């Protein structure tokens, strides 16, 4: 039946074509006469504006001032504005695509696998369960990619990834297994690139449950765990013992006193002073999920369990929870024992670590003391790290004094490549830009990561493996430097703030074309943010529709 209709259509189409050719007027078409003064295409700039700033988010309005200028007016000063802007969920989509896919399934089917951006690569094919293939964007505004084709593959087992690299079927892979560092270093055909540890693994305690409501108990535990032993035994090279919650590579992170030294005798005495000379019984909760900050989950949990028993006589029963249930229970402060969790940087700013964990409304550690949350709120308003230093010193010292959690380690990880790969990357924010890496002159660059991307509609995605795939295709106004955390302009040529950091005026790059052929201008920026931020907009449609990063980093309007 289908074939018949198709045949009819083809026949009609051909007949129609013939008829049109036959009926072509014989008179020549009037030529388009170029006028001396080009017709000035009038630009009508869009505006996204909140009714007022009471909704609690950052943006008051986003205005397309002219075709290549966007003004961001903020409700409160935001020193991390550019760092956040560089994050790939805030990459720019073409207005045409946003409008044409709103209310359609295209965005949640085609859009998930073939995102339209301005990046050096375009998605050519996503074979689900197997690989994503990218091809070079012929109209890319910047330097063309070194390899014509990029293939992204995945395997959850690090041993399997290593085998693939050794057998030569891939050019590089992420997250070298802790036991494989020596193997790669010893192999002349391979090279390893270390990723700076921009994460934190900590042991959390909720101070609304006894005995963790006693600060002396928490301090005793802070002194009673040998963190150096954990890092030495269970972490790969490039990891370090955490002196503060936030990794020291980030400005203001390590203002204030370093963490307690390991002192089991003093710890035992302090625990006795708190009324627990014989220790106590509790639980140790964790999820069995490997992350850069916790590469050997079960082993670290068992070691902490053993240390608690040996050093403080605290008997902690191990409870392994399902990942989703664990995150929910820990975030809402329902875990009555220790919980093992960590955090990787979304953007390289101290607010990304402290504000999320120790803000006023955080429930994960019970009630956050004002000496912590007031300082971090104050610090978040200041752009100059030197000016913010005394405030973060006070905040970090309060965290050390009150011990809502025990920072254990900043876990290093590494990316392995074939030895002939030029400019190997290991981004601290796991946002490697493979267009800049030359796979030894080969046309195809194959990279293997830990898991398949969930979707490539990254405005509404939080999964790191998905974001890496999007980095190759999508670009924001700013981006991160290669192998670093500093921001540099990408689709903007500059964003200039006013004195109190409540307004950023961004000048956009001209001559940029999206993968679908549409031209990049200021309205694309406003429409992208309307799609992400304005919950009442018809364009606010996505895969999960949670828009987590838009909500967490900027705040959704009209929720």
């Amino acid at each position, binding site marked *: 039946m289908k074939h018949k209709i198709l045949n009819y259509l083809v026949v009609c189409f051909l007949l129609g074509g013939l008829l049109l050719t036959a009926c072509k007027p014989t008179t020549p078409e009037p030529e388009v006469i170029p006028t001396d003064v080009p017709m000035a295409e009038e630009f009508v700039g869009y505006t996204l504006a909140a009714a007022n700033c009471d909704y609690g988010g950052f943006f008051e309005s986003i205005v397309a001032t002219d075709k290549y200028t966007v003004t961001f007016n903020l409700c409160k000063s935001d020193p991390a504005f550019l760092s956040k802007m560089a994050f790939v969920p805030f990459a720019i989509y073409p207005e045409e695509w946003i409008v044409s896919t709103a209310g359609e399934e295209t965005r949640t089917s085609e859009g998930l696998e073939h995102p339209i951006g301005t990046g050096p690569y375009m998605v050519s094919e996503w074979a689900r369960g197997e690989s994503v293939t990218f091809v070079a964007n012929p109209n890319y505004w910047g330097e063309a990619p070194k390899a014509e084709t990029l293939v992204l593959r995945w395997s959850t*087992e*690090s*041993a399997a990834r290593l085998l693939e690299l050794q057998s030569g079927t891939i050019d590089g892979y992420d997250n070298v*297994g802790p*036991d*494989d560092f020596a193997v790669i270093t010893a192999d002349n055909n391979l090279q390893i690139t270390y990723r700076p540890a921009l994460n934190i693994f900590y042991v959390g305690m909720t101070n609304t449950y006894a005995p963790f409501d006693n600060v002396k108990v928490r301090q005793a535990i802070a002194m009673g765990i040998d963190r150096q*032993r954990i890092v030495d*035994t*269970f972490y790969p090279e490039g990891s370090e013992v955490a002196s503060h919650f936030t990794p020291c590579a980030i400005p203001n992170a390590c203002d204030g006193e370093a963490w307690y030294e390991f002192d089991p005798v003093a710890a035992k005495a302090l625990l006795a002073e708190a009324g627990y000379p014989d220790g106590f019984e509790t639980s140790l909760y964790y999820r*069995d999920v490997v992350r850069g900050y916790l590469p*050997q989950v*079960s*082993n670290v*949990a*068992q*070691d902490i*369990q*053993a240390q608690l028993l*040996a050093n403080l006589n605290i008997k902690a*029963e*191990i*409870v*392994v929870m399902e990942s989703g249930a664990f995150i929910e229970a820990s975030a809402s402060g329902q875990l009555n024992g220790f919980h093992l969790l960590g955090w990787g940087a979304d953007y390289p700013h101290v607010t990304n670590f402290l504000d999320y964990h120790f803000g006023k409304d955080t429930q994960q550690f019970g009630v956050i003391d004002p000496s912590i949350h007031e300082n971090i709120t104050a610090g978040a308003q200041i752009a100059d790290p030197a000016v913010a230093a005394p405030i973060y010193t006070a905040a970090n010292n309060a965290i050390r004094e009150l011990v809502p959690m025990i920072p254990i380690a900043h876990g290093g990880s590494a990316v392995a490549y074939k030895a002939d790969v030029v400019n190997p990357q290991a981004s601290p924010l796991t946002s490697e830009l493979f267009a800049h890496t030359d796979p030894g002159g080969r046309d195809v660059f194959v990279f293997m990561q830990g898991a398949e991307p969930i979707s490539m509609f990254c405005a509404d995605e939080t999964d790191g493996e998905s974001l890496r795939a999007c980095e190759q295709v999508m670009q924001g106004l700013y981006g991160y430097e290669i192998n670093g955390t500093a921001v540099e302009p990408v689709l903007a040529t500059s964003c200039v703030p006013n004195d109190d950091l409540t307004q950023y005026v961004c000048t956009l790059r001209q001559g940029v074309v999206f993968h679908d052929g549409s031209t990049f201008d200021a309205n694309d920026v406003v429409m992208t943010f309307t799609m992400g931020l304005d919950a009442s907009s018809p364009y606010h449609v996505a895969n999960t529709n949670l828009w987590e990063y838009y909500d967490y980093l900027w705040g959704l309007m009209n929720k």
Partner: protein
Amino acid sequence: MTKKESKAAKLDAEGISLKSVSLWQITWRRLFRRKSAIIGMVILGILVLIALTAQWIAPYDPFQVLIGIEPVKQRQAPCIHLLGCPEDQPEHIMGIDGNVRDQFSRLLYGTRLSLVIGLSTVSFAIVIGTVLGALSGYFGGWVDTVIMRVMDVLLAFPSLLLAIAIVTVLGPGLVNALLAIGIVSIPSYARVVRSSVITVREMDFVSATRAMGGNSYEILFKRILPNALTPLIVQGTLGIATAILDAAALSFLGLGAQPPTPEWGSMLGSERNQVFTAPHLVFYPGLAIMLTVLSFNLLGDGLRDALDPRLAHTSG
């Protein structure tokens, strides 16, 4: 009947004299004539010995972390002095595990745990299954229908899947895992006992007891059950192997014994990613599970043959 013939009649198929010996003596002797059963018994004997003496023969405490105590590394390969490992290095014949503990000591203690798991789950299942099966077979009628349909429902699920479901409801942990494995093995024992009871209850000696005025309790538990035990013993021995395997599977999946308990399945599961880099950490627990299961299976098979009354009259 000639003298020769009468002598032959008093020997069973394997030439064991039936004169004034009990069923158990016959079984025992038959069992010892089967090589596979002997192998099973020897392995099992060694395992029982290890389980009983684990605290004396284990060189280390199974929970002791050796960081700072000995110059050993995480997941270090086995060091055996007899095989050329330098004398100045501490001897760990099965290497060091992921938490820097002596793998050999943990494996020895695991024997104790595995045998306890096997025996306790099977005992639990046998007790419940026997009572249910006996009631069902003896009374028949609606009692039989209700009990057996419930057993059919339990049998309808793959046993491990049902055990996982039960553990998910009860929460992970060794006791809950044992309970789950116990529950899922009840139907097989109930069925075995029921069929035996149905056969035995029609026999003359039962009718005689009934005629003499014996009550149901006496008939069922003193007359019928002792005579219906044989298949239960075979089923129980084989069941221990299955129970150990199921418990190891649950622990492997993280639903059974929780760390740091030295349980073979959990030891295997936690190091499964190191199969290339530290094969000794998955090889030895796997081997231990295999040997234990093998020993119970060999013994169970031997027992089945030895207890089979048909073998008394055949030459096979």
